[in-house]
């Protein structure tokens, strides 16, 4: 991660047209790729849970959602910061990538809301798994429908297809890899946390159960 930071700020030369703001690009692309990867993790967790009914899959899904929503928020905040000086607009309506990421963010948040309003138990894991699966299947559909809609209503803003110099490509690759590693690390940490929670839960339940047994004598 440190290497990526160095690469983004010091190694890559200042982009010709856009100036310093372009450096956001390094974090933005890494975060964007990863938020979709995290959602794939949610899908895997959902399918895994529905097939095996093992709680570890639910832990995977929940951790991916929490970390994924953070990455998506990063994408949606760094995006406008970059866009304002370059395209003179905070929010380009109609751009398929922007809109799909927005919808992805909404689905993430909806998942979290669903998760928090269900009581602990099998039902919760099942319902979240189902929603995760349907959400993941939906994302490509959303992408295509927005792209189709965009061809009907052409938007004035064109994306800047800048050529990248060699050092920039290096910096980009390094930062994407770094972000991916960051994602995996965070998900793993979060999963460890979930597992600890559930172990603690079980121990609490066991203690209560044995208390009752003692009293019942």
């Amino acid at each position: 991660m440190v290497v990526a930071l160095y690469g983004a700020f010091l190694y890559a030369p200042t982009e010709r047209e856009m100036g310093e703001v372009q450096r956001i690009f390094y974090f933005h692309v890494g975060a964007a790729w990863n938020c979709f990867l995290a959602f794939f993790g949610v899908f895997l967790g959902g399918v895994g849970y529905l097939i095996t009914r093992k709680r570890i899959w639910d832990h995977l899904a929940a951790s991916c959602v929490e970390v994924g929503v953070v990455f998506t928020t990063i994408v949606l905040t760094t995006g406008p910061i970059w866009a304002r000086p370059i395209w003179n607009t905070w929010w380009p309506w109609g751009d398929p990538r922007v809109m799909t990421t927005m919808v992805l963010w909404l689905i993430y948040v909806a998942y979290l809301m669903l998760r928090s309003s269900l009581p602990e138990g099998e039902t919760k894991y099942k319902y979240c798994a189902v929603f995760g699966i349907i959400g993941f299947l939906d994302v490509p559909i959303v992408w295509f429908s927005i792209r189709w809609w965009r061809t009907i209503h052409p938007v004035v803003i064109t994306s800047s297809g800048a050529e990248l110099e060699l050092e920039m490509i290096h910096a980009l690759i390094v930062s994407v890899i770094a972000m991916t590693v960051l994602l995996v690390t965070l998900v793993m940490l979060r999963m460890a946390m979930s597992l600890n929670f559930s172990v603690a839960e079980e121990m609490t339940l066991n203690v209560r159960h044995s208390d009752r047994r003692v009293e019942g004598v």
Partner: protein
Amino acid sequence: MNPVALTWILAGKDLKIEYRSRQAFLTTVFFALLILVIFNFAFDPGSPATREAAPGILWVALLFPGIIRLNRSFQLEMEEGTLYGLILSPADRGFLYLGKLLANWLFLMAVDLVVLLAFMIFYNFSFSIQFLWIAVLIVLSALGFSAVGTLLGAMVSTIRTREVLLPILLFPIILPIILPAVNGTQEILLAQEIQSLNRSVELLIAFDVIYLAAGFVLFDYVVAD
């Protein structure tokens, strides 16, 4: 028991309940009309900008009352505990889904057509062949809406905050239905090039199929205990 017969019977049961006391139907229609009227006040009625926004207004008025229907569809099951009786039937749970879906779809189509009539009157569109095309769009998008909505509605039926939660869950997912529907309506009403209308219809059909398939498979997990 023949699963197709089960589907029909289930849908028929739901629709009969709604028919006997038309309260839910009227409430839903009234809510939609209210939305149309509020938008009338929200925008300057004479301006061309409002006329251009009219297709969007129609679809807002169609979507939000749909949520009411979806919530109600499982509310009765919850209150009377009849869901267990349904689950006990030997047919594949997917047909349970189809039965509920059919009832929701037909109900929504009925509501939507009444709202469409009111919309044409309020916003001064002439009754012509346009009416039929918009009806087609409504039929298709109500199907997709009901497909995802029945699945999610079953999920949230046990949650206290279901009225708020269902729209939050549903709308991001059915965005691909809303886009072609609004776009198609725009084409028809504002008479731009009609060629993309076919594409809208094709897309709606494609998305409906995907949502139906996903719902059919996943409903089992939602309802099973």
